[in-house]
């Protein structure tokens, strides 16, 4: 009995510290600047505990019953704290307000625990012994929690489930208290029922926690998440850090607004500027409209067709004020036609011919995407291009995925193109590769459109030079029946991220 009581002290101490650590960690993850976040959270939390200790003087009757209620409240609020905060961050506003509100409420409740428990135990122990034991266990619990948190809880369970687990411990303390002190509790049955209910809720939370974390993936991103949406095709997340906006698809960075002009100018202008007579352009992928923004700088182009799988993507980049400003409203231009379809079957059905094509698909990290980098695809694409037409293909990094890059070059060759490989340095990506495919001899353009920030005659010539460490390597052709590219890509990026 005595041991059970002291175990309770140890556990509630551990729980109290865990909630504090979770709030701090969550705030650092989601808001960045961990020193600031941890300092303010710890300060606010300790201050709230002080308020709780002070308030404990106003509880005069039915101490045990009050204690059980407080445990249940801590268990419930603390247990669901990270769930609520994650959801609020992703789907609602006022995150900071909620965060500190939560820290204050939990702090106050935790601050009430130890004084109440000491008063409950007062009649059973001498004061000297009681203070020594309770405070010792309190600090031991804190030590246990602070070690457990970084070593086991965060890596194994994650923030959402760790909080739920410790909420469950609080509720368990309440539950066994209803048995230990059963003679001292007036409303025994209702307290016990309430305890079971809270335990049940928290267990349900544990069971569904994976669904919660699937949707609230904000913790993945160290910057502010300003837009997050799951479509049937992918998960779109836009983050902001100061004036840098970044788009992630399924967790993979697509662009950073600080340097994407280097990427998109390189993707579009070497090819299109050399085709003064180009009338019809096609963009495959690239639903963010950034390539289209570069295309519409050519007044001679009569139509731009953008084929992107995800209607949500093109809709957001046509209407959302912030996202639309990134592509300068290019998607709403009258010359631009948006088609939401799967590129390969769309090309198979279409009979249109284009003068310039931009292929801007995500990197070939799986077999579904790998199909869009096969010789069959390039052969089909060639059938949709005018005789003087050009295609520019984003082709992953010749630095980090050298075999993958040269595999795309070889595959385009096998698809019947004359190839002109080139590369650009994009700070947020690293060294990035492109391939220009032509059907006859190609020479770089004499002039470029005005207002470019990165490309001029001198930089453009340098793009086509490959230093020895980026140069060609022997590779096989990527075919539908043998997707070597996905294997190269998987191997090369695994080596980088290991």
């Amino acid at each position, binding site marked *: 009995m005595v041991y059970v009581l002291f175990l309770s002290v140890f556990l509630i101490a551990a729980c109290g510290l865990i909630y504090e650590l979770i709030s701090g960690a969550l705030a650092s993850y989601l808001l960045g600047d961990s020193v600031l976040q941890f300092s303010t959270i710890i300060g606010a939390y300790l201050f709230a505990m002080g308020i709780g200790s002070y308030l404990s003087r106003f509880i005069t009757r039915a101490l045990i019953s009050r204690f059980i209620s407080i445990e249940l409240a801590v268990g419930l609020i603390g247990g669901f704290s990270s769930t609520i905060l994650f959801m609020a961050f992703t789907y609602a506003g006022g995150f900071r307000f909620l965060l500190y509100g939560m820290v204050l409420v939990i702090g106050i409740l935790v601050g009430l625990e130890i004084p109440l428990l000491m008063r409950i135990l007062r009649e059973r122990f001498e004061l000297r012994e009681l203070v020594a034991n309770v405070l010792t266990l309190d600090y031991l619990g804190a030590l246990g929690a602070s070690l457990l948190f970084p070593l086991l809880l965060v890596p194994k369970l994650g923030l959402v489930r760790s909080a739920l687990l410790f909420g469950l411990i609080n509720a368990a303390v309440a539950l066994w208290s209803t048995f230990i002190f059963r003679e001292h509790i007036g409303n025994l049955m209702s307290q016990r029922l309430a305890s079971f209910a809270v335990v049940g809720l928290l267990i349900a939370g544990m069971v569904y926690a994976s669904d919660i974390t699937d949707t609230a993936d904000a913790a993945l991103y160290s910057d502010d998440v300003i837009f997050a949406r799951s479509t*049937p*095709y992918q998960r779109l997340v836009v983050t902001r850090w100061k004036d840098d906006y970044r788009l992630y698809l399924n967790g993979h960075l697509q662009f950073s607004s600080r340097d994407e002009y280097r990427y998109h100018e390189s993707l579009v202008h070497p090819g299109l500027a050399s085709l003064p007579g180009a009338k019809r352009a096609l963009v495959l992928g690239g639903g963010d409209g950034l390539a289209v923004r570069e295309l519409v700088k050519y007044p001679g182009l009569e139509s731009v067709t953008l084929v992107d*799988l995800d209607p949500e993507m093109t809709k957001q980049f046509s209407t959302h004020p912030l996202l639309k400003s990134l592509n300068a409203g290019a998607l709403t231009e009258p010359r631009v036609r948006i088609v939401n379809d*799967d*590129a*390969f*079957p769309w090309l*198979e059905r279409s009979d249109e011919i284009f003068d310039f094509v931009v292929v801007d698909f995500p990197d070939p990290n*799986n*077999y*579904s*995407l*790998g*199909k*869009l980098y*096969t*010789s*069959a*695809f390039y052969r089909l694409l060639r059938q949709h291009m005018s005789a003087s037409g050009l295609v520019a293909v984003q082709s992953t990094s010749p630095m980090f995925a050298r075999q993958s890059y040269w595999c795309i070059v070889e595959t385009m060759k096998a698809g019947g193109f004359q190839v002109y490989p080139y590369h650009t340095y994009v700070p947020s990506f690293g060294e990035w590769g492109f391939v220009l495919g032509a059907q006859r001899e190609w020479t770089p353009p004499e002039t470029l459109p005005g207002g470019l920030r990165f490309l001029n005659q001198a930089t453009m010539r340098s793009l086509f030079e490959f230093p020895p460490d980026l140069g060609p390597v022997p590779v096989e052709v990527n*075919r*539908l*029946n*043998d*997707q070597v590219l*996905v294997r190269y890509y998987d191997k090369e990026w695994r080596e980088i991220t290991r």
Partner: protein
Amino acid sequence: MKLTRRALAPALVGLTLKGAPRIEGGFALENVEQGHLLRDRAPLMRPRESERVPVVIVGGGMAGLSAAWWMERQGFRDFRLLEMENEAGGNARGGENEVSAYPWAAHYVPVPDTEAGLVRELFTELGLLRDGVWDERWLCHAPKERLFIHGRWEEGVEPHAALTGEERRQMERFATRMEEYRETGRFTVPMERGVAKSTAAEQALDRITMGEWMRREGLTSAPVRWLADYSTRDDYGTRVDDISAWAGIHYFAARQSEEKGPLTWPEGNAWVTRRLATKLRTYVRNNSMVFRVERAGVRWRVFTQSRVYEADCVVWAAPTWLASWVVDPPPPRWVMDTAPWLVSNLTLERWPRERGYPPCWDNVIYRSPSLGYVVATHQNVARHQERTVWTHYWALADGRGADQRRLLLGGDWHYWSEKVLADLERAHPDIRQCVSRIDIFRIAHAMPRPLPGVMFDERRQARLRPRDGFAYANCDLSALSLFEEAQYRGVEAAKYALGFAGRGR
């Protein structure tokens, strides 16, 4: 839906059973009754019209279509092809729904090597082979095949996860032995070429079962036996302990592909048969069941419900055993066991959850009684596929064909759809939440079973020799139900018919 206690109790307290959505479906292409009219020699109407035509082909499967294809190529146009169903194709038919086309049986052709001249000629004509390069579009896309073993999907059909040293050595020895047999050049497609060159050693292989051969070779561990058994069920509808060792070895040792294949299409080999049937449509008569063929002087009278054909020559491309019921004077009884198959096309509203290697064209479950499933939408080039169709194959290969046929025809749709779902559930626990439709084709006589003794049997060889203007063409003459065999037999019979009819003119 039948009310059960499990469904009733929650219903009484106003709850709905949290279970799988209702699955629709039924049996497809069933034509058992019509087939049995022949067996029971039911009195059929005498046709009133008659037509004189030099050559009649009976049966519009791959063999019959190939015979017609060959004659047309040689500039011969005086023939008819009589097909009892409303569409030619036989074992190479296919269906379609709003999600995808899908096969009803045969669904791929191995990439032919340079020896397989006829297949190459046909595929060149169909545009699959251009200037020595195979059309990538219809070569099986990556990833090709996977195996569900030890709770997750692994790449490839051969088990290689968590093998003991001895198991691994046996797998390797098996592969080496098959390579040695391949190098003898006596296991060929078409098989007759190799059989002609065979020595006593090969003939001895036809006297024992594959299981016995493996025991003699010390190949007794579970993984290698499973691989052999899976393969013989998959291609020949026969268990490893029943099949002729010669046929079992033929599966592994007969082909040397020049390109990563096979060739495959959403609708399976119906892609080929439909193109042939369209090209040959002036000669094909659908819904024309031949119920009697009789000798009349130097000619043959071929009876269908509506018309009797007077022919100099008959190419019998229907199953060979059927001739004993239809032809007069009756040929000697043809005793060859046939394997029944259950082919189910499942429509999925979403892909099930799973672990390991991603979905492939061919998806095999280790130690399952079925043959696994093929993804009909695999050759679709779309990046995103919300819905799909799976073709689940099940060769009822245990024991005698007749017993398995009773089992096959005895089970109703609920019985078989439940069996198929339970089989898939081993690898996909939430499969019932994904499937909206199951259409099932019960093929009573799907293929000949190459049991020991068949390959070098005198009676089989006797059937191969056409007589009096009557030539057999079905692939069961090879005892191997293969696309190439059907085509070869069809063309061989057509060559005979051309010679015969040419003489008659």
